[in-house]
């Protein structure tokens, strides 16, 4: 899986609690992405990073924040989890912009109860 590790792989949390998902890469790729996958919606981009401390919003960023303090780590935080954020979250990396292929992690299944 191209040296990408997501943690945790599964998590159940309660509404209103903060949750942090971690993506770790060993490829030294510049670009990192967080997507969510929901039935009927495919994958939707939440946030992305184009370098250390350089991040920007995707199409569904409300309720999420990210941080990238090191090249290898990209954290996704749900500030106050809601049931609508129950989803499967995927981290992806690419050496350059989307004009090249992206490599995906195994995903984190998050359930907010």
């Amino acid at each position: 899986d191209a040296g990408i590790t997501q943690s945790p792989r599964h998590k159940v949390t309660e509404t209103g609690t903060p949750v942090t998902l971690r993506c770790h890469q060993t490829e030294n790729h510049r670009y990192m992405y967080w997507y969510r996958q929901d039935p009927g919606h495919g994958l939707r981009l939440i946030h992305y990073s184009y370098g250390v401390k350089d991040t920007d919003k995707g199409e569904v960023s409300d309720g999420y924040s990210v941080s990238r303090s090191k090249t290898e780590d990209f954290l996704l935080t749900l500030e106050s989890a809601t049931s609508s954020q129950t989803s499967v979250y995927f981290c992806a990396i690419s050496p350059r912009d989307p004009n090249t292929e992206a490599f995906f992690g195994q995903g984190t299944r998050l359930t907010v109860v």
Partner: protein
Amino acid sequence: SQQGEEDPQALSIQEGENATMNCSYKTSINNLQWYRQNSGRGLVHLILIRSNEREKHSGRLRVTLDTSKKSSSLLITASRAADTASYFCATAGRGTGFQKLVFGTGTRLLVSP
């Protein structure tokens, strides 16, 4: 809104048959990519076709791109049970600045022995 829409949503065939999936998109693109997702796993990049290309091959995969119709097709020849997966097209837009990769909702392919 989704850029790519796959058709059909689901496809069931026998081993040895060919499988064809179609993708339509809405705006000008730099490239179009196809990914495969096995159940419970992350996406795996299959092939990338640039906007100035019309056809590309990779093993048993054949991708065509018609920019005038804003459509692409993925053909898997001599399908195997191991090809059972969901297949997604993704488009990288054309323009200055960061162009996110936008995914469609996918085609679920079932190949029966």
